[in-house]
């Protein structure tokens, strides 16, 4: 390479960017438009929501997951509370039994 690599690269990159700007806008024929309409008429309306459906699906899924977590969490908390109460009652009962049996 003749000059500094960076300088050359910058120049080449600038040329490519300018070439991108100069690209001619396409000219579509009447046949092109007709073929789109033929394709469009073959399509059933509103079967494939391509663009916004994934976002809606994700939002709905997030809400469902959140609600499920809250539900499962509250059930577990409630169950844990019940289990604690059961154990406490059990030990208390065991203590009472032992006392009745005459253990020190």
């Amino acid at each position, binding site marked *: *390479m*003749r*000059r500094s*690599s960076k300088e*050359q*690269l910058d*120049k*080449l*990159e*600038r*040329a*490519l*960017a*300018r*070439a*991108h*700007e*100069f*690209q*001619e*806008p*396409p000219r*579509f024929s009447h046949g*092109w*438009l007709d*073929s*789109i*309409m033929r*394709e*469009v*008429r073959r*399509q059933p*309306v*509103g*079967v*494939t*929501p*391509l*663009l*916004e*459906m994934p976002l809606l699906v994700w939002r709905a899924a997030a809400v469902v997951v959140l609600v499920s977590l809250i539900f499962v969490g509250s059930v577990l908390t409630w169950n844990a509370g019940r289990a604690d109460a059961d154990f406490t009652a059990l030990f208390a009962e065991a203590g009472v039994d032992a006392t009745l049996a005459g253990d020190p």
Partner: protein
Amino acid sequence: MPEGDRRAPKSSRGSPDGSTRAAPGGTVAGPGPADEEIIRRVLAGEVDLFVELITRYQQHVGRIVAGHVRGDMVDEVSQDVFVRAYTSLPTYAFRTPFAHWLARIAVRSCYDVWRSAAARKEVSISEMGDEHQDWTERLLATESEERFEELVRQQETTELLHWALAQLSAENRMVVTLVHLEGHSVREAAELLGWSAVNVKVRAHRARQQLRKVLEGALRDPT
């Protein structure tokens, strides 16, 4: 590289070129129902009215697509964009201008083209041709701005651009084109691609480095 700030058109009627490249053209003029009305009527069953939307936005879509794919692919990809727009029309929420909504479909359709080409391993990773090597030599040798502009307008430049972009992954190619070649902000590119801004920002830097590496390799290794 140009750094532009493209403002969103306030109305969905009248300026379809507001969301992508800065080049003017394709502006909707003349009387006629607003986009919203046409869309509602198309959805209500007046399918033939969709032709009015195609007529209004063909230049808008064509420019976007031409910026991302080779010239021989523009017709087919633009056609696909309008068919996808039609099938997705029930999801159009009238919140953003129709031109912006359409631009997102156009950009994502182009991305799909390169992604599926990569999946089919159809992307060319050939060496740069002799004529492009000669062109590069002349470009680097030129001192005057006029000669530079003259060389830039030659067919070889566009071919070299497509060759260089073909060396990138589909994701990097889209980001380089949107951010570095077309001057979109990271936020705009993210919106068009449907990616997070962080993803685009990280990729934009890496993609440009990759492009420069490709070009550097081409300069270093004249074959």
